[in-house]
């Protein structure tokens, strides 16, 4: 009898842990031609929404606008799984995903783990993609001003230096 109760408890506990929102509920929050992030609806989805967002961001069968928005919405979650996920995207070869991954990483972790953000920013400041260098330099200006000034000295394109200063 005890083992039956134990099994039931384990089942209930597992069910609670697995109670992530349905993917289509999360997807609905990413729809619209002129989408902007609103925190409330995502928070109302409850625990597990970040897991769904990570799945959407990684789903290559989806049109990018949904994946981009999932990455942006992940800035609302500062847990370790999300941090690792955002770092991976920030270091990816696709600049659209890299910039959004970095932007969300910054929003979620720049206060609690500035070193984590700094490491990715250092990497992106060497990127051949100008917009990635700009985004990384702007962040570095806040967390490591000397590194930011060094970037301005070695950056060859004037418009990139100018944009990094904005």
């Amino acid at each position, binding site marked *: 009898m005890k083992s039956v109760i134990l099994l039931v408890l384990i089942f209930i506990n597992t069910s609670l842990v697995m109670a992530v929102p349905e993917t289509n509920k999360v997807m609905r929050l990413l729809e619209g*031609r002129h989408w902007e992030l609103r925190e409330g609806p995502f928070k109302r989805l409850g625990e597990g929404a970040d897991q769904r967002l990570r799945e959407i961001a990684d789903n*290559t*069968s989806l049109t990018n606008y949904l994946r981009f928005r999932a990455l942006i919405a992940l800035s609302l979650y500062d847990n370790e799984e999300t941090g690792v996920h955002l770092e991976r995207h920030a270091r990816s070869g696709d600049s659209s995903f890299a910039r959004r991954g970095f932007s969300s990483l910054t929003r979620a972790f720049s206060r609690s783990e500035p070193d984590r953000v700094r490491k990715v920013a250092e990497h992106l400041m060497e990127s051949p993609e100008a*917009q990635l260098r700009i985004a990384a330099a702007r962040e570095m200006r806040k967390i490591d001003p000397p590194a930011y000034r060094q970037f301005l000295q070695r950056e060859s394109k004037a418009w990139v230096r100018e944009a990094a200063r904005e």
Partner: protein
Amino acid sequence: MLGLLRSILILLLLTLVIQSCGSSDTNQNDVDSELPTVSTGNDLNPNSSGNGLFEIKSGTVSFLIHATSATNTKPQFNSLKDPDGNELLTTLGEFAWKSNGYSNLLVPISSSYDPKPGIWSYSATNYSQLKLDMRTSEIPETPTIKVQPYISGSDNISSALNIMKSIFSTNGINLDVEDTETLESKYSQVSYNFNNSTTSEMVSKGDEDKVNLFFITDYTDAAYLGNAAGIPGSQGLKGSHNGVLINLSAHKTGGSLNNQLLGETAGHEMGHFLGLFHPSESGGTLFDPIADTPQCPLSQNSNNDSKLTAEECGQQYGADNLMFWDSWENGNQDNLTEGQVYVLKRALIAK
């Protein structure tokens, strides 16, 4: 000695009082005597209070008043009265485009508004310049609108442009799409904000008599499918608000462009640029000013999340309309109502 000082002090005080009264009178007289005059040509010349007059000649199809300002202020229209003295802003006001650096007023935004011939009056604040553009050419059965695409990168957008052209053609508008021009690499990723210096510089390349479509690789700061510089954009006026942005990378699935979606986005943003609003906004409580566009009411919200998706609204409630607020995965958005076509046919740059 004390008496002399007192006399000087009284004299000084009297002088100050007289001067201040005189100054006040002069200012009052200036304002009172500065009656608005009827502007001729494109430059509007309001008086110092921002009030002015302009003439709409017989045969005018549409007009657009542009108000520009520094990018940190929002020009504001406070009144627009037709020759009969009817105040249009009581109903048109919520649809008047207002943004930092640029606001405007378009007539007509639906068949309820008419560019009546005669003397119109207006009142505006926070502007640096006011301009008026009018269209007097006749409305042909199938008007033509010139379109100039620009692109950053090497994606092939010809299929999407054909889809966009076909949507308008089916609805009685001919699009004269010019050869696509390639943009410099610095414009490959730009801000969605038309006041941003790089975006502004890029959009200012567009001609004033065309819809300028900028197919950018990506936004630097947004995840939109596309956005227009205004509803309407600055048709007839070259500058920062004379075009629309369309995000190429947002339309890709596994590296390939979704041409149907891209063509619909280009058409949707062009619709905004020419003066069309979303028939229903996502919350199901705000609707456009056009009488025959399908409204998707809040009652269609099946899961009470206060967001009406294209699936929930379906064709019956306008999900197939080009101007629906959301894209539609399970159907094409190629429909426009007669009321929407009424506005497009009267677009300032249509011929």
